[in-house]
């Protein structure tokens, strides 16, 4: 770095001060909060806190900045903790029972844009997208890249694209969906893989209910109103113990996608039920 020499002294000092302040400002947050392996959010927290158990943060976004890759963010008590984009390996756990929620309108809830070897776990969370009101949330969970994603005990209601939208650019991605319910969204689950990548999605004990053409839908990769929709040769979905009920169309698999059943699902009460493309054994 070269110092300005042709300036009057006063200006020079001012400039130095400016640079110093800037450096200090940049350094303080890093010095103040080293990244922890486990951080906490609370409905009455504050993102100025270090997100510790005794000084929790207010939002997922505030906490993730203070959480090391591979670490975990836990909800301490009920709250709405806001939208988040995940770019590293992380676990989010809303806790067993309390309402730990993400409420959005006009955007995605949680975007997973993680690295090609990253594992992301989302557990015990609620997503509210406000559809069919105008300007609803797009997708509750939008998986764009990453090696492995687990969705466990998730409730999703009212999204304009899809409750769960999986369209991974990673060469090989695996997604596990457990005990998860999607209601009143323009689609329940959409799995898209049109390139040479492979995306395998397992669904167990989950419900895709009342995916209707609600109005204000914004699907790009799928028609509206599907319970579960898979498209592209790289997309494989397998379902067990799950329910697809009250959708415009229950199941859809196009362009070479596989939608397999373990033979113990309920696909009923949809305007058109659609069908699985094949069956698989659970053991």
């Amino acid at each position, binding site marked *: 770095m070269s110092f300005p020499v042709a300036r009057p002294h006063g200006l020079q000092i001012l400039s130095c001060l400016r640079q110093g302040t800037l450096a200090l400002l940049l350094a303080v947050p890093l010095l103040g909060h080293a990244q922890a392996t486990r951080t906490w959010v609370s*409905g*009455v927290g504050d993102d100025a806190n270090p997100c510790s158990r005794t000084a929790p943060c207010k939002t997922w976004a505030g906490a993730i900045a203070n959480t090391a890759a591979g670490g975990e963010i836990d909800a301490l008590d*009920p*709250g*709405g903790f806001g939208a988040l984009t995940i770019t590293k390996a992380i676990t989010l756990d809303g806790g*067993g*029972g*309390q*309402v730990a*929620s993400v*409420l959005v*309108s006009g955007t995605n809830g949680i975007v997973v844009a993680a690295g090609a070897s990253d594992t992301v776990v989302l557990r015990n969370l*609620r997503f*509210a997208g*406000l*559809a*069919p*009101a105008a300007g*609803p949330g797009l997708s509750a969970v939008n998986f764009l890249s990453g090696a492995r994603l687990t969705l466990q005990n998730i*409730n999703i*209601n*009212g999204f304009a694209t899809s409750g769960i939208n999986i369209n991974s650019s990673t060469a090989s991605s695996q997604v596990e969906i457990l005990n998860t*319910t999607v*209601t*009143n969204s323009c689609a329940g689950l959409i799995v898209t893989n049109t390139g040479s990548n492979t995306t395998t999605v397992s669904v167990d004990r989950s*419900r895709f*209910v*009342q995916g*209707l053409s*609600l109005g204000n839908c914004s699907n790009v990769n799928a028609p509206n109103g599907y319970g579960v929709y898979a498209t592209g040769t790289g997309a494989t979905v397998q379902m067990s113990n799950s*329910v697809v*009920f*009250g959708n415009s169309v229950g199941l859809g698999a196009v362009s070479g996608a596989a939608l397999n059943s373990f033979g113990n699902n*309920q696909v*009923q*009460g949809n*305007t058109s*039920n*659609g*069908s699985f493309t094949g069956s698989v054994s659970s053991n």
Partner: protein
Amino acid sequence: MNKRLQTWRCLALVLGLCALLFGSPVWAQATRTWVSGVGNDANPCSRTAPCITLASALTKTVSGGEIDILDPGVFDGSLSGTASTFTITKPVTIDGGGAQVGAMGGISGADSLVINLTTPSAGGVILRNLSFNGYGVGNNGIHLSSATNLVLENVDVTGYSSNCLLIDPGAASALIDISNSTFSNCAVGVANQTSALLNLGDSTTFLNTTLGVSSNNSQGGVLFFNTVNQNNAQNTSFVSYSSGTSASLSGGSGGCAFNSQQFVIPATIASGSLPSGVTAVGAGFQFTTNSNCGGTPVTITINYAQAFPAGTVLYKYGPATPGATTSTWFQVPGASFGNGGTSVTFSITDNGVGDSNPTVGVITDPVVPVVPPSSLGIPTLSPWALVCLALGLGLLTVWSRRRTRA
């Protein structure tokens, strides 16, 4: 005339003053509100200043928004005064969390929760992680009264003198999805009185003193998935179709079978466009066969839960003549009712009359049992309706005479 105008002005002024003095403060509506067992309805129902009743929180929540319960409590007004019926008038999600107890208690002779949306189709209502206790004196626990889609997840309803869950005739064609819920110690656990379709998954009805699940509308339906009805005076009673309703197929070439089949609410076939005067008397049945059903005619038998009234015929929506490009409603020729009037059998040939699917070997066919207009009697009013009509006319006369005098 001037005096009258003056009176109206005075009345308006008084009402306006009353509204200013005693009306609740106006809050901007939030997308998410909170209630707490130690909240206060004078609060904005925020996370840090929660309310104490669901009714107050609803007024401060946008349509399609969410009310969450912060901690244990009962949110029907009894913690801050008197319990009263909570009426949901707009789409909303109510989430009790998982560790909370309480939610709604019983009110003698009244319902705990009524769902009656001002605009029934404006969106769905989600009830999650809630418990309802009628203390043995409440009338209905949850009462759906508008054609609104309803989701119950992890909801426990117990101790109501009428129904734990009532779907009344106002909820025609609603979809109701129920999971991980229980309905117990009521007269009837789940009562469907209309053409709604209920899906009970991973749920239990038990110890109800009259019935576990009842569905008494021939166009309604009840589906079960891992659901148990046990220890009720009578476990189920269906006039509607249920998961037990079945259909069979024979004929076609070797290997001809259903590819998909289901009973449906008649209103879902061809957008409910049954010709005027034709009344559906049972669930519709939709099916698609696999591709081995070409050649010889295929015979379909559909078994219903109840006998159809006299004069019932089978209608279908599709090409009325072989190869017709437009679909219309017509009577299926040769359909016969058997088994005490509870089953109907008819034949259909691939790409013949009624096959809506031009693919060779595949038959697609929605049918509905109906009573056509010719066999309907002249409409008459029931004795009670006549009494009502007479009373109405009487009142009209009195009103009209008073008006003349004034």
